């Protein structure tokens, strides 16, 4: 059995956005009980991560660490047409990932207790982000 759906999220600047609920609902609507949920973001300046969902300071620290690691307007960057945050956003995306594959068990994401699925927006302005979810398995 296979189910594919496109989700769309509005982001309002840099940071992590919890999308676990929307992914879980997509799996429930598919009717698939055991299998794999593949999540893919169709952009090069925003990425996907699994991260702790309990204490929001974890994600604030991730933002701070990434800001220190990959600086906006780094002097080695020549790609500047779309602003100082753009090339930094491409590098941040590459250092994380564009897809996640999560097992499905009894109709739910088989995540650890404190794992959440997050969209990590790396651009400073508001954006609409498309995510393709492909669910494969058995009912």
């Amino acid at each position, binding site marked *: 059995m296979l189910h594919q759906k496109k989700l769309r999220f509005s982001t309002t600047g840099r940071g992590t956005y919890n999308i676990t609920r929307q992914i879980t609902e997509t799996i429930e609507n598919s009717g698939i009980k055991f299998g794999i949920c593949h999540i893919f973001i169709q952009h*090069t300046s925003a990425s996907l991560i699994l991260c702790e969902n309990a204490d929001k300071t974890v994600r604030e620290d991730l933002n701070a660490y990434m800001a220190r690691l990959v600086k906006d307007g780094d002097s*080695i*960057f020549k790609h500047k047409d779309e602003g100082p945050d753009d090339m930094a956003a491409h590098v941040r995306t590459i250092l994380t990932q564009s897809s996640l594959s999560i097992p499905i068990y009894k109709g739910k994401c088989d995540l650890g207790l404190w794992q959440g699925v997050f969209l990590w927006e790396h651009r400073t302005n508001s954006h609409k982000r498309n995510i393709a979810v492909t669910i494969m398995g058995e009912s």
Partner: protein
Amino acid sequence: MVYQDTIKLAPQEHGATDITDLISAIIDDSKIKIGTCQLFVHNSMSSLLINDTADESTKSQTADFLAQLAPTSDGITNIIDNSMDAIPSAMRTAIMQTSISFPVNRGRPLLGTWQGIYLWERTTQPKERKLTVTIIGE
């Protein structure tokens, strides 16, 4: 349905090579219309990534940044941030991927407008690279 093909890529120069069309052709051969496609490189000196296709300089600047982040073991210099320890070249392997996966829809990679698939050759002495493509779907 599962379709798997292992291909040998001719030696590519150091840096990123766009393989989107090559992979699209393999997906087309599989006749699978909807599903996922996984790519896997069988070595630890090249990597796979999905990167921006709009501006050529994006690729080279990503390469420059990664070279700073994980310099080669000869003459490690800490040029990014004095509070960070120097990162050995092994980190480059850890932060880049040997496999990537993306959805397939209507028999084509379901990529964003500006996304392309790249093989990133990290050695300066390129070799033929083995790449396995596994497509699962209907």
